[in-house]
């Protein structure tokens, strides 16, 4: 998991690799909006399956599937457990009691700690949302050349500094993972036991002691990379030719995706209006039924 090459973008010849970065970015943005608009678990699950299917098409390696699984399971577990316990909307159905209100001190102080079914469901929906974005984010960074990504950002008029910062962070994320493992090893070799004391100030000091070497090294690397890129004619004042033509087919696909997102947005608005009794068309009942299930 700490191996650098697992996190870095690798070249390939799959459809996903061959897609223009701008298409992938539009896809990512469209999915992000759709996951926010939609509340239906089955639609979100469908989107989640599509995300996994895209990883299959992109031929993600076994190690990458493992990383994806770890992150998704962790986010699902965290989200479902926290929502199951702390859900405060009504109605809510108690599934289990962790601390009874009759337990002295803790029970009376908290009013009881329960597991709520609705909270768990809500947590699952949130987890699906984050997993979709996580999966697509990983897919984009694993299949996209940082150089092309930088070009895409700049062709969309993103400020040079911001674009370069974004790419540098993406470029060095794998390195940071790898170097964190080395620093932890070095600390173990020197007899350092970071969790020996759980006092807050000790934990903060430990965090700084782990971060210092990684930050110092990353800053040096980033400075070298910036100099190297500038020495190869890349900079804010350079007006380069746009050699990377965005294929018409992909442009059309993006247009359709954005159009679909807009359509979904309108449908969601109509659904909310009918739900709140603002606008209702009886002839659209079948549409409302579909929206109830899928949105």
């Amino acid at each position, binding site marked *: 998991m700490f191996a*650098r*090459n697992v996190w*870095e*973008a*690798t*070249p390939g010849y799959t459809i996903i690799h061959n897609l223009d970065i701008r298409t992938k970015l539009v896809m990512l943005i469209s999915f992000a909006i759709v996951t926010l608009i939609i509340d239906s678990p089955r639609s979100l699950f469908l989107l989640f399956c599509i995300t996994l299917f895209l990883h299959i098409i992109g031929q993600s390696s076994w190690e990458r599937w493992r990383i994806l699984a770890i992150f998704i399971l962790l986010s699902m577990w965290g989200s479902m457990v926290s929502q199951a316990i702390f859900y405060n909307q009504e109605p809510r159905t108690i599934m289990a009691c962790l601390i009874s209100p009759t337990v002295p001190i803790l029970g009376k102080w908290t009013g009881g700690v329960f597991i709520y079914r609705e909270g768990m469901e809500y947590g699952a929906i949130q987890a699906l949302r984050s997993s979709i974005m996580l999966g697509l984010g990983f897919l984009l960074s694993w299949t996209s*050349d*940082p*150089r*092309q990504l930088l070009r895409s950002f700049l062709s969309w008029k993103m400020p040079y500094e911001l674009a370069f910062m974004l790419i540098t962070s993406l*470029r060095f994320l794998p390195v940071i993972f790898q*170097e964190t493992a*080395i*620093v932890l*090893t*070095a*600390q*173990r*070799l*020197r*007899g*350092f036991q970071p969790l020996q004391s759980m006092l807050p100030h000790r934990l903060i000091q430990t965090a700084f*002691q*782990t971060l*210092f*070497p990684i930050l*110092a*090294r990353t800053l*040096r*690397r980033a400075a*070298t*990379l910036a*100099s*190297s*890129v*500038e*020495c*190869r*004619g*890349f*900079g804010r*004042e*350079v*007006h*380069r*030719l746009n*050699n990377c033509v965005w294929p018409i087919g992909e442009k059309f696909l993006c247009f359709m995706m954005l159009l679909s997102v807009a359509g979904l947005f309108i449908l969601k608005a109509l659904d909310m209006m009918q739900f709140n009794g603002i606008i209702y068309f009886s002839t659209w009942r079948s549409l409302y039924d579909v929206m109830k299930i899928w949105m």
Partner: protein
Amino acid sequence: MNPIVRIRNVVFTYKNRSLPTLSHINLDIEQGDFVLLTGATGCGKSSLLKMLNGLIPHENGGLLTGEVFIEGYNTQDYSIAQLSQMVGMVFQSPDDQIFSTTVFDEVAFILENMGIQLEDIACRVHETLRLVGMFDQLDASVHALSGGQKQRLAVASVLAARPKVLVLDEPISQLDPQGATELLSVLEYINKKLGMTIIIVEHRLHEVMPLCRRVVIMDKGQIVWAGTRDEAFCCPEIFDIHGLRIPQTIDICRCLGVTVRSAEVKDAVLAIQRQYKLPISEVGAESFPGESLVDRTPAIEIDQLEFQYENKGRSILQDIHLAIPTGQFVALMGNNGAGKSTLLHQISGLLKPVKGQVRIGGEQVNGIRPNVGMVLQNPDFMLFNDTVAEEIAFTLRFKKTEDASSQHCQELLKKLGLEGMESDFPLALSRGQRLRVAIAAVLACQPLIVLLDEPTTGQDIGHIEDIILVLKEYTARGGTVIFCTHDTEVAARFAERIIIMCNGSIIADGTAGTVFRQKSVLDAAGLKPPAALLIAQELYQGESVTVKEVVDYVRQKCVGSNAGVYDNP
């Protein structure tokens, strides 16, 4: 003929510094020249290079007076992007400068920035990759390349623009001998074939000097010596004064009072033969140190050690049998991927064997042991305290065994030249100083065994000698040292025992003399024999591996006594 690089009265002071980093620099470099720029760490070499492509002052800021001209163009009047078409720059670490995912994309990057059409780019990329011998890896992932290939790719990525001047900042310092040879051959080829001016900053003079035509030595921000390579060979004292490393061939000739204008072994041998009539070596005529060390108590014992990272993965270590006695100074050598670091990790207890066992002081290793200290290749990862003093006393304080200001720590600071830096932030020190802090931090705990993973990488000979002296003292007190290195000259000079690994196995084990004379072993491990050995073989069919041994032998045989012993300046 107008020089392609003209530097006039340049003084440069970095932002937030009171003293100039470069002062009164005047230098002319002709078209097609191959210039070696050298000097001790921190003397301003890299700053001077950055001035040639405009990184100074355009990017780094600071105060610059004087003028730098490239082909007559003043660098202050042009942007870095414009200058990139005239001056290509390659940095020290290939991993830090590569930006793309494939070899083709990396080389195409500069051409795209120049606004060249797509079809012309492909053509130029192919041509450039042929020049650096990487055409076969056109579509390869950059992650699949070796260190040497990555550095050649870095050269190709600026070479594609066909700059007039190519500047390289310590490009071979992090490469193994094979990678360094590959890169230097490419530089020699493009210098001759394209007539490109090359300016290279490097500490490994013994490898670069045979290629260059001019040498420039810097010290404390000034140029203290400049001349042709032949002139440099004739006055090796200047290198000693500035703590620089000269080729062993020149060093031997200098010690024997022979003048030679080349670093080639055959030239040195001819020059020596003109002055000395040497008999062919008899068996046992040469004396080698370190042969009487076999009867000591074993500090490390390794039996049938096998290791692989994954169940059905490639075998990293295969059937390793080893016994290292207490107090021995061992050099572990081999090409990248031979298994050296993995073996060190096994000894330190960071990794567990798949088969066999490692014993330290007779006890089986089952995890990290406090009596084994390890210095990683990159010292930065080992420094996590606010001051040098805290860093050195860290483990001691952590173990509550000794106070931070103990006598031992103070001695270590002094011996490693870190006195006066006790309050400095370790990560803000120079690379050499950071390494010495990491070594001091490990030695402060007085472990039984110290493992060092390539401590000589990127260090000048002065720093290497400082470190080795401290480690030698430590072994004299009963400590055991194993260090990985690619540097056969350093290993031959300092190590009592050399272990050579190849593909996870030990292929040679013995003194420098016995190991380095096995050509097939060196070839398999991608190592170069020390030049001293080549001279000894040519000169008297001997097996001496250090400058001292060759000089002593020649003097003894020709002068009749060893009275005038070699004196390493």
